[in-house]
């Protein structure tokens, strides 16, 4: 609709011809908002910002504060005087270092496995399959998300148990332990890796591949120098999902991890069993710090710019 239009049917705000609605009150209000940029901005942002602050900043601040408290061993009452003892324990005790490294190792392994499986599946879905088959495949990838996490992990416990499905295949079962954790976690987070890669691949125009082919590039080269660089944001997004989700998980380790423990277990034991909430909070800071370091490193490479 053109600006000069005077049609009475034009009911856009501020344009109405009804004097009652144009009232003198609205004018100073909008004029004020127009002049005061920060007021307009803060009114607009206050609701989502308050939510963000409540959910993230306050929760993290509370976590940090809690980690500076300590606990009375007999009554388990929290002592609210500030101390760095918990962090000293984390730094000095070898066990926390080992568990952190183990957790990072498992998270990295799960991420590598997931990306390796997700790439060909996502490529097939985005570039090879017919539109009909593509829809079916998306549904197939999403279906496991509808089942309960616990059901899936306990199924893996049965599969990996002695005389279970894994043994019937003739390949043998790895038994309960870190291998079992990697397998189970890789299965559980796979959809979260496939989908972003699929989305990134779908954005790569077919004409680009055809042009590369017309210019004489062999398939490997097309994949390597055309597709892969365009895929990096998708891969990074998927990798962040599987890495951070694995790092925070404790249920899978509890069920199929055998005697091994990961960071999540230590948080769970200290928060849910040993009643040492301050130490649990301190341990929970480890994955947060790791993710912050990781994200800033990734940001520096520029992989996040297109997300």
């Amino acid at each position, binding site marked *: 609709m053109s600006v000069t239009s005077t049609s009475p049917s034009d009911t856009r705000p501020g344009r109405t011809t009804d004097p009652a609605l144009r009232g003198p009150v609205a004018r100073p209000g909008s004029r004020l908002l127009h002049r005061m940029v*920060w007021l307009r901005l803060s009114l607009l942002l206050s609701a989502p910002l308050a939510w963000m602050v409540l959910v993230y900043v306050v929760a993290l601040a509370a976590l940090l504060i809690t980690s500076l408290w300590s606990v009375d*061993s*007999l009554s388990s009452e929290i002592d609210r005087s500030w101390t760095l003892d918990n962090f000293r*324990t984390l730094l000095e005790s070898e066990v926390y270092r080992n568990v952190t490294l183990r957790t990072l190792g498992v998270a990295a392994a799960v991420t590598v496995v997931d990306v390796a499986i997700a790439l060909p599946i996502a490529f097939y879905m985005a570039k090879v399959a017919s539109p009909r088959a593509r829809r079916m495949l998306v549904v197939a990838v999403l279906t496991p998300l509808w089942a309960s996490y616990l059901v899936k992990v306990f199924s893996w416990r049965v599969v990996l*148990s002695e005389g279970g499905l894994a043994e019937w295949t003739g390949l043998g079962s790895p038994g*309960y332990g870190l291998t079992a954790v990697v397998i189970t976690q890789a299965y559980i987070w796979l959809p979260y890796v496939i989908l972003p890669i699929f989305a990134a691949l779908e954005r790569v125009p077919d004409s680009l591949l055809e042009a590369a082919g017309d210019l004489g590039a062999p398939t490997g080269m097309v994949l390597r120098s055309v597709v892969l660089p365009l895929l990096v944001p998708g891969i990074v997004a998927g990798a962040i999902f599987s890495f951070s989700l694995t790092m925070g998980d404790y249920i899978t380790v*509890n069920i199929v991890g055998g*005697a091994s423990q990961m960071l999540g277990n230590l948080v769970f034991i200290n928060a849910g069993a040993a*009643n040492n909430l301050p130490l649990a909070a301190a341990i929970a800071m480890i994955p947060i710090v790791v993710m912050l370091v990781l994200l800033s490193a990734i940001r520096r490479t520029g992989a996040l710019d297109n997300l």
Partner: protein
Amino acid sequence: MKNTLRKGRVATACLALVSVSVLSACGSSDDDKKTEAVEKVGKTEGKVSILAWPGYVEDGSNDPAVDWVSAFEKDTGCEVTSKVYGTSDEALNLAKSGEYDVIAASGDLSLRLIASNEAQEINTDLVPNYANVYDFLKDTEWNSVDGKNYGVPHGYGANLLMFNKKNFAEAPTSWGAVFEKDQLAANKGKVTAYDSPIYIADAALYLMKTQPDLGIENPYALDQDQLDAAVALLKEQRQYVGEYWSDYLKEVQAFETGDSVVGTTWQVIKNSIENPDVDVTLPTEGATAWNDTWMLSSQAKNPNCAYKWMDYILSPEANAQATEYFGEAPNSPEACAQTTDPKHCETFHAGDEEYAKQLWFWRTPIEKCLDGRTDVQCTNYAQWTEAWTEIKG
């Protein structure tokens, strides 16, 4: 724009500070906790919420044949909701939520509940069935403080050794089956152990019998050297452990399939296992054990129904059913007369004080040595918890 951002940051910081101070201000109120005993039982509230070990509060939903809760509900009109827990540590945390009226607590939990003002003194006059209970279970070190009783006895039993006959030429009779290298080697990766710091006492008990020069008198009273020895033994065991259990269903499944073949257990777990090769024994060294009492929460919302429950579960009929199902000694001779297996009380040596002395009932390790030593400082539960994290690695 820069300015806006900075203002936002200041506001954020203020908000964070305000909320943190609010957080620390609340949460510590003891106002709604009532630790003195009541004078009389009033009108029942129509419901009661119970926190207990698995197998203590059975309403037929696990096994239609095992149900003593429905009778209680019919008699008193108090509807029972219950939650099971896996370790005493977990129970302490749950009890602090204030959502439970009655708590079944073992010796390693009861003192901690009392120390943190989570328990209410019990007026045993209001629990008529308390009169039947064996005298040696009453007013024990772990349910009374300063002459005040905080728990009425439920039953007691041992942490037994469970094994799969197929993996043993001869049935093991000693805890050596889970602590000695040469015996462990055959079952590498299939050994299991109870996942709680209190399991350190099992190792201490074994050392007490096999290495007398360590001078362990009581597995819950360990000085630093003794704790270190127990930790070393458990670290060695760790190399052979397939998994630790705290969820009893996990142990049931592991022994059913053969993923675990030897380790500590409770009789109730053995009872749930259908594999005929799985058997249990009380080793010659004796065992750690639990002695459970029903405690009343200081935050109980339904204290009257709670008193009704405590009286009911102490009654010979209910106590016989619950303790026989769990596999432990009942709390009274009258209950022994009511068990379906006439030999039950004989098997579990109910009322046998001498036998009970062979068992080392769970206690909370504290700095003041429980065995009476005054020349050293003992290790406390927090140190045991730290050691346990370290053992598991």
